């Protein structure tokens, strides 16, 4: 049996004696008799470390690790340089707590300051927080930042990832905020409909760019429509795409959020991931969660510290901008290490390869008999339609390929990244062709 209690029972008896106690029962004398557990917990017996790791290997072995992944829809398969894992695996980073004691936490604080800078550079925004739980939560918190007494209704584009919409709705249930969906037209936000729906009670529009179907939205038009109506724009973006696409700062978004998982974080069955959040300078004090700022120590030396804490729960309690305490610090550190390793050129290379491979895959799939659903320009995801969806995905799976995500009605949402070689894209198309031809 594994145990991480190092003191021997003899030592423990001695310690109890020094406390003036007769036995362990004395420690729990405030617990009502009827509440004390009479039976042993119905848990398995403890195991040795060797048994534990074998058991874990057995469980992991029950899962299918695909050779090739052509599915995205919110979680993306990118190459992670080995150095990224080395850095995030450093024991001190892993086992430290939130850097409350700045004098012995400069390493962690500086890493967060660097992450905030990376996110500002990527998004073109002025201010970033230290992270939230994931991209969907970042979107929900971003919408909350825009709400005030007069403006409380949230508009959400129907081309936003439905998982994000679900989280925004759940958060809105908490705050009793109304969420209205803006329809989608030809795979993108219907701007004519948006114009009609904007009103004096609307706080913000949540839009995704590239959107759930991979399509590039007309952000200039969306932003000017929303701003004309006095509301704010919260844009959810893919961080890899920001290496090449116009930034939220450039097209005038008020808040940029997104799922940071593509930045060096493994798929991991959905978590831990990373929600990034950035805003204009004007909205900085409404950001939720930790923010690290630069300052000086008593000797005038540059140093870093948790700052703007007057927004936070431990100071403001029920009046805080959010309840967030723990965030995803180690994932943010991973993202920073990934961006440092890849550099601006490496990130751009990954982005261009994503686009190139996705377009190549689309061409091959069209040749194989699938039809492209939307004509608009896309980044690295696209939708096809055609018969035999289940058969196609099953045949791909049988060959170690995780195909696109079925959206219903014969539609499939595909994704390609720098990880997918020409050879495997050809292989995929050949399998699709065979299924459709039979």
């Amino acid at each position, binding site marked *: *049996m594994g145990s*991480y209690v190092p003191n021997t029972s003899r030592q*423990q008896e001695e310690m109890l004696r020094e*406390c003036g106690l007769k036995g362990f029962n004395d420690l729990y004398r*405030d*617990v*009502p008799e009827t*509440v004390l*557990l009479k039976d042993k*917990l*119905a*848990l398995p017996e*403890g195991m040795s470390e060797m048994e534990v*790791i074998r058991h874990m290997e057995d*469980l*992991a*072995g029950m*899962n*299918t690790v695909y050779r090739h992944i052509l599915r995205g829809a919110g979680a993306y398969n990118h*190459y992670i340089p080995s*150095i990224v894992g080395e850095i995030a695996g450093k024991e*001190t980073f892993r086992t*430290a*707590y939130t850097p409350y004691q700045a004098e*012995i*936490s*400069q*390493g962690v604080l*500086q890493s967060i300051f660097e992450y905030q*800078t990376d996110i500002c550079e990527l998004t073109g925004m002025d201010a970033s927080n230290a992270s939230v739980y*994931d991209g969907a939560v970042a979107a929900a918190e971003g919408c909350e930042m825009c709400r005030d007494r007069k403006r409380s209704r949230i508009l959400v584009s129907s081309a936003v990832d439905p998982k994000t919409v679900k989280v925004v709705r759940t958060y809105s*249930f*908490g*705050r009793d905020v109304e969420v209205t969906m803006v329809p989608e037209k030809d795979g993108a936000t219907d701007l004519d409909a948006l114009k009609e729906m904007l009103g004096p009670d609307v706080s913000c529009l949540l839009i995704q760019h590239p959107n759930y179907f991979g399509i590039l939205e007309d952000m200039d038009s969306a932003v000017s429509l929303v701003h004309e109506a006095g509301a704010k724009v919260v844009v959810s973006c893919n961080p890899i795409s920001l290496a090449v696409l116009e*930034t939220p700062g450039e097209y005038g978004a008020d808040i940029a959020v997104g799922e940071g998982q593509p930045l060096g974080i493994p798929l991991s069955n*959905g978590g*831990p991931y990373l929600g990034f959040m950035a805003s204009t300078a004007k909205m*900085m004090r409404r950001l939720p969660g930790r*923010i*690290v700022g*630069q*300052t000086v120590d008593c000797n005038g030396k540059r140093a870093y510290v948790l*700052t*703007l804490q007057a927004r936070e*729960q431990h100071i*403001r*309690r029920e*009046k805080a901008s959010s309840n967030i305490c*723990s965030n995803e610090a*180690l994932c943010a550190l991973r993202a920073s290490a990934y961006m440092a*390793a*890849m*550099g601006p050129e490496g990130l*751009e*290379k990954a982005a*261009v390869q994503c*686009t*190139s*491979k996705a377009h190549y895959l689309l061409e091959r799939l069209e040749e194989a008999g699938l039809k492209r659903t939307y004509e608009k320009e896309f980044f690295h995801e696209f939708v096809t339609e055609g018969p035999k969806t289940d058969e196609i995905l099953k045949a791909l799976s049988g060959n170690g390929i995780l195909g696109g995500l079925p959206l219903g009605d014969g539609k499939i949402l595909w994704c390609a990244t720098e990880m997918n*070689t020409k050879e495997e894209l050809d292989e995929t198309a050949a399998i699709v062709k065979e299924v459709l031809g039979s």
Partner: protein
Amino acid sequence: MKLIFERSTQGAGASTQYLPSCDVPEVRLSGKMRSRQLRLPSLPEVEVDRHYSELARNAHGVNDGFYPLGSCTMKYNPAVNEDAAALPGFTKIHPLQDDETKKGCIKLADELKKYLCEITGMDAMTLQPAAGAHGEFTGLLLIKAYHRSKGDLKRTKIIVPDSAHGTNPASASMAGFEVVSIPSDENGCVDLAALKAAVGEDTAGLMLTNPNTVGLFDPNILEITGIVHEAGGLCYYDGANLNAVMGIARPGDMGFDVVHLNLHKTFATPHGGGGPGSGPSGCKEFLRPFLPDTDDPMSIGAVRSFSGNFLVAVKAYAYLISIGAEGVPEAAKGAVLNANYMKTKLADLYPMAYDTVCMHEFVMSLEKMKHEIGVSALDVAKAMLDHGIHPPTMYFPLIVHEALMVEPTETETKETLDEAVQLLRDIHAAAYADPEKMHQLPLHTTVGRLDEVGAARNPVIRYEFEA
């Protein structure tokens, strides 16, 4: 320390070595492209490596030394759990794979939920919340959805003791409740009269940490949950302090209806410098339909995209199967004993806020020292920094003046506790010998005391590149 941006030299990056050249025709998008330069760091891999090694040297983890940070349960994070979470059969699984291709993940999650239900006395559990506060928010939404489902719209208030963590009132606010703060009694526990006066037809529920934030098990717990239930409210258990009682007593048997746990505290998963954590929410059977991340039409929806911080759950599961049924209460007892031992050894010099047997943590009040010689809880904490021990939690709970909250955890040896006790006794002597010097400490850390006011007044929260 240089910032990584100050170490950068444009064009010196390692970037080109990671990806092969593109083997399909290159496609450049014709839409609007970024015109601003992307100023990410650009440096050779060896420099990236050294930069982060330098940062790591200037930080303090559980591996570096004793970490008695009250309320945070900084126990040892076993290495084998990391190996388990690094298995490709977990890390390479796409969350949207079909269930039949990730049976191992599902089995692990189901078993972990079952174990956590057994430990808490709950009937159902979700692993979706990503941290403790996230779990609180989830649990409060369950309470809200429950009252709504009964058409009971007038239950708009959540009662929170004044000793609670700040996340409790903040979460209640986010869930749309009005917060009613009730005072604690002279023992730091719930004031029954104040509670009775506070409950009514508008009570949605009570949030309580037990053992509470002053480190005591509330002896009136059954009366407390009874009063709230009697009034038609539900009882929420903040699991921040479960480490003291796991395997000894269960929130479900104390009368609680909803709980959240912190896998990154009680179940030995590392804190990562502020996350990722994991904050599973558990509930009694009647609240099951409202849980997030299910197909139930009554579900509150989802609090995150996918089903939780899965790799954190993997580590907690590995921890539980290692220590097993007997190891769970053994850990709790060890934690409580270690805390009482330190408390006993310090009580003659450092007045205890509540002089009774404590649970897994205890609170000292340095009010007397502050009054006599002007040395504060902050000064004592800062003095510890020069000696490789992370200080206790400062100035919490709010109901104790000049508070230092000490939580040693069960994974520390008696020798470590003795050393920490000796250090605190030495600091006490040093303070009375030369109180002025205490305000200058620490002297041997990377930086000295910081100008926090200046940081907040003129926020510099990103690196500004030279033009």
